[in-house]
């Protein structure tokens, strides 16, 4: 080892990769555009300025390997970093159109020189011990830094200045002498993939990425669902880091084709999800995964995995890769984003054909026997199915039968039982019990084995059509804090009405006898003793206010559909309470209504609530009687019992 030289630990390589990514992502792709907007550069002028960046990038990407002026890679890297640094600081000046184009050209040129030089001689800074891991780490950290909330949300000026300072730090990194130890090389041999194919794959990926980025950036709904909020940004950053490290691991274990394929699947799926702003949140998981996976490969391939036989060839390949895939692919993607505003599924399919088809064909050609047998069996099953369908006579289904099919299709059986256990608390709660002979007539009986929600064996006796419909559309609103998903989509066609009809059909004889049992029910004495109006108010707001307060959401949405508009319990009237008589009796009746509802109306029961909860609810309503204790004495008015700072 020469004096002054030391074996590199690789941190310099990781740092340079991270700095390059931060500069490119937060400044060249982001802050500079914001800066141009603040300078009033827009429309055709903006296109010209961005074109200057692309020209600079393509030019220096192609020229970098041929530059004989600065033969030392360290020196060339410093020149690239210096140009990038200068461009970042120059962008802070009040630039006109021509000056903006010049700075833009400088950004592209600096990045072109920087990236191609970095990957051509990457082992000089990463060493040979863990080069792939260091590339993954550098890329992941670069993305993480860009997503740090204070940095991401900072002004364009702060971001530009930080990018410039980071370039200066990069120059300092290159000043530290290094020495490579060739005996440590550890990357296993990769299967041969032609350079042209790799170039096409990267171009497709950059194209998708740039289009998705531009569309998110310029669609407020999508931006809100993907990049806004500290927690979201942290999550994005950490996903980027994890995916980048995973990419390095997969590149070593599974090779380039695998990583590019997975990157496409994630990125393509994200692009499809972005078609619906309602799914932007899910897209914000897949987008960073796809981007980080291929971003690591974009450095690792030319630097470490490519089949280049000499440094010069590696440099040329890197140049073409960044000129065509990087700069041109990016421009094409942004153009698509600008013109269409979305990524058409056909375009995703085309990108998939470029990336997935060759390895898929290779895979399948190696497994002709597997493929042939699978296709043969699929076809055999298809024709057998057709024959059976032709032979079977299927009479038309009634609405209830169709609804039963919907119940089965949606897997309702996984959360709802249809079995009231005789001689158990089930009977009062969900009853009456259905005779086993009746149950056996169902094909198949839908007993279920788990209750995430109420038993539905007798739901037709307990709920009205309106309640069922409103509940399917927004369960958490109608049934306080219900974890059931919305099934509003069923009402886009007849499935929703069929399902409601089926549920209403779920009732057996004995309903009147059961209602008598309900009328005999009172909360247990211990529950009555523990009940209090404050709990009652909380429970009222959770379970009742949606219908029984003036601004209740369910009340407002369905107001014309109710058999009778539910009374606002702040003012009454109380239709189903005795108008006179002992207050305790009225409160007991209120408890029964809260527990079992009012048959024949839209008022549902809350059968699953405990006696204590029911007793508390019956205490709370600010009825014309005021709030009362269990003895029926007026104790406090509503405004006095409401906890401080917790008013409805």
């Amino acid at each position, binding site marked *: 080892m020469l004096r002054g030289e030391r074996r590199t630990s690789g941190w310099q390589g990781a740092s340079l990769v991270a700095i390059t990514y931060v500069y490119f992502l937060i400044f060249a792709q982001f802050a500079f555009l914001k800066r141009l907007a603040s300078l009033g550069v827009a429309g055709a002028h903006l296109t010209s300025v961005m074109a200057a960046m692309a020209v600079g990038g393509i030019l220096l990407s192609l020229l970098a390997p041929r530059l004989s002026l600065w033969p030392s890679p360290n020196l060339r890297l410093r020149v690239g970093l210096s140009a990038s640094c200068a461009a970042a600081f120059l962008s802070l000046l009040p630039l006109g159109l021509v000056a903006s184009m010049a700075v833009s050209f400088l950004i592209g040129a600096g990045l072109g020189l920087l990236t191609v030089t970095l990957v051509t001689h990457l082992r000089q800074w990463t060493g040979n011990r863990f080069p792939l891991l260091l590339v993954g780490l550098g890329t992941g950290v670069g993305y993480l830094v860009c997503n740090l909330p204070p940095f991401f949300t900072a002004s364009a000026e702060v971001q530009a200045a930080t990018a410039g300072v980071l370039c200066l730090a990069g120059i300092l990194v290159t000043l530290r002498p290094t020495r490579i130890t060739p005996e440590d090389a550890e990357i296993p041999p990769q299967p041969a993939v032609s350079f042209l194919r790799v170039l096409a794959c990267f171009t497709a990926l950059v194209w998708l990425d740039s289009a998705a980025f531009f569309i998110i950036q310029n669609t407020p709904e999508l931006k809100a669902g993907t990049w806004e909020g500290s927690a979201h940004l942290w999550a994005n950053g950490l996903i980027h880091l994890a995916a980048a490290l995973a990419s390095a691991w997969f590149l070593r274990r599974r090779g380039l084709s695998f990583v590019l394929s997975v990157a496409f699947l994630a990125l393509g799926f994200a692009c499809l999800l972005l078609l619906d702003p*309602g*799914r932007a*949140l*899910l897209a914000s998981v897949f987008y960073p995964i796809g981007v980080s996976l291929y971003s690591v490969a974009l450095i690792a391939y030319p630097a470490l995995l490519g089949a280049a036989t000499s440094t010069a060839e590696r440099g040329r390949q890197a140049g073409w890769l960044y000129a065509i895939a990087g700069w041109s692919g990016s421009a094409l993607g942004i153009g698509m984003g600008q013109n269409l505003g979305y990524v058409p599924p056909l375009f995703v399919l085309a990108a998939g054909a470029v990336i997935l088809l060759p390895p898929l064909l290779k895979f399948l050609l190696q*497994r002709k*026997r*597997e*493929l042939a*047998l*699978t296709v043969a*069996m*699929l076809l*055999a*099953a*298809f024709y*057998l*199915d057709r024959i*059976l369908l032709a032979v079977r006579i299927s009479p038309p289904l009634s609405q209830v039968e169709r609804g039963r099919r919907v*119940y*089965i*299709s*949606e*897997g*309702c*059986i*996984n*959360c709802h*039982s249809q*079995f009231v*256990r*005789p*001689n158990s608390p089930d009977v009062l*709660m969900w009853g009456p019990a259905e005779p*086993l002979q009746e*149950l*056996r007539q169902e*094909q*198949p*009986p839908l*007993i*279920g*084995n*788990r*209750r*995430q*929600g*109420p*038993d539905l064996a007798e739901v037709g006796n307990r709920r009205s059509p309106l309640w069922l419909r409103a509940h399917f559309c927004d369960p*958490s609103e109608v049934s*306080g*804090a219900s*974890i*059931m*998903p*919305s099934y509003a*989509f069923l009402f886009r066609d007849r499935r929703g009405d069929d399902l409601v009809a089926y549920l209403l059909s779920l009732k057996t004889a004995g309903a009147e006898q059961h209602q008598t049992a309900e009328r005999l029910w009172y909360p247990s004495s211990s529950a009555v003793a523990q009940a209090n109006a404050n709990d009652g108010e909380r429970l009222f707001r959770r379970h009742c206010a949606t219908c029984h307060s003036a601004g209740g959401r369910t009340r407002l949405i369905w107001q014309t559909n109710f058999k009778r508009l539910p009374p606002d319990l702040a003012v009454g009237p109380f239709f189903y309470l005795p108008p006179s008589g002992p207050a305790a009796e009225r409160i007991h009746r209120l408890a029964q209504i809260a527990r079992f509802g009012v048959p024949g109306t839209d008022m549902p029961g809350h059968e*699953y*609530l*405990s006696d204590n*909860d029911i007793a508390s609810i019956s205490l709370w309503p600010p009825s014309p009687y005021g709030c009362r204790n269990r003895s029926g004495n007026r104790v406090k008015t509503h405004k006095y019992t409401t906890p401080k700072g917790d008013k409805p």
Partner: protein
Amino acid sequence: MSQSPRDSNISPGSSPQVVAAASHALFWLVFANSVGVMIAILLLFPALNRLLGEWTYGRWIIVHMNLELYGWTSLPMAGFLFKVYGADRGPLAQWCRPVLWVWSASLGVGAYSWLSGHSSGKLFLDWSGYARIFFPLAMIALWLLLAASFVYEWKNAANSTLAARGAKLLGLVLLLIVPIVMYIASSPGFYPAINPDTGGPTGASQLESSLIIVAILLMLPFGLTRRKAGHSRIIAIAWAIMAAEFLLCFALGRADISHHRPAQYLSLGSLLIWVPLTAAYYAAFEWHANTRRWRIAFLCWWSALVLTGWVLFLPGILDHFKFTDGLVGHSLLAMAGFTSSLLIFVLVQLLGEGGWIFNRTRSFYGWNIAVLAYVVLMSAAGWREGFDPTFTIVPGMARNAIYILRLVVGLVMLASSLDWLIDATTLLREPALVPTAQEVTA
């Protein structure tokens, strides 16, 4: 780990066909576990359901359960049958992978059909429409391969005894019935006996299904290894007891009878004999050294399953836990605890030296401790829920805390299964560890 000459006789090594079966099984385990984790997240954050469109929670539950059952717990048995019928060696070995592909394709078709809303409404027999035909066809493809292998071995293997051939022939006949039974049992018109007090299975039907598991347990060692000398007595006793219990089961009949009837819970209690008997039975066979920890694990889970299964059926206890998370925990004990450890034990025995893929300390303890934690958590939730159904229906802090912990243990199980899958695919890409048929002949 080097293979001792003794071990090499017990388990010849990793056949690529068995490794392929393990890989397919593990793929579906990882997939189904991922779905399970997603479901656990949805229970905590129901608002996320809107991201799924029409592929709602209820449809994913079906996917999760069926892929665990027909993917993870079935495909290792395909590997076992390859070995028993000699399909993993000789000229027919090249058809093992195509058969596995067809099986996996049928699961893929099934998953898509469940997500598209095609369901029979029968838990664990949820095949309908096109998938109801394709899956039995996949079973028939496996059967045809086994039958062809059987014929080939009959003609070419001179060292096979008549008893072994007879047993294999009987096995083939029974295996041919399975796809037919599967098709018929998936029909909505066919439903087993119902316990009129719970809506669940009767004691007799639980005894019947448990005895089928016992029969498989007793049969497995004969396809995997050889007996130790001087242990034939315990083997004979075990088979005799099983036969007696089947007679008891037939005597009980298939009527809709309550678990409060003493004949039901006492007869189910007869299964307790299998706690010591299974351990003694398995000790009567020679096993590869790599199987030790999974053999212990499966015997522990089996003991826990039999014991808790009986206790949970007792009057009063079943009434408390029915329809609660307590029984969800018990199902997991059966599937992730007992069945999974048994299958891994079988795979390790089949893979021999390649069994290292299941023996990493992190994944072994990660999986088993996570399953135990899951069972304990769900039992606690079920205990509370038995007193107060609101505990689950209206989520509160205690319920959410339990569900968060459940999510964490679900992630640990997913990580363990991923570890096995990654190692299995590594093994799959390695050159064959066993000599080819030609080499053996030579």
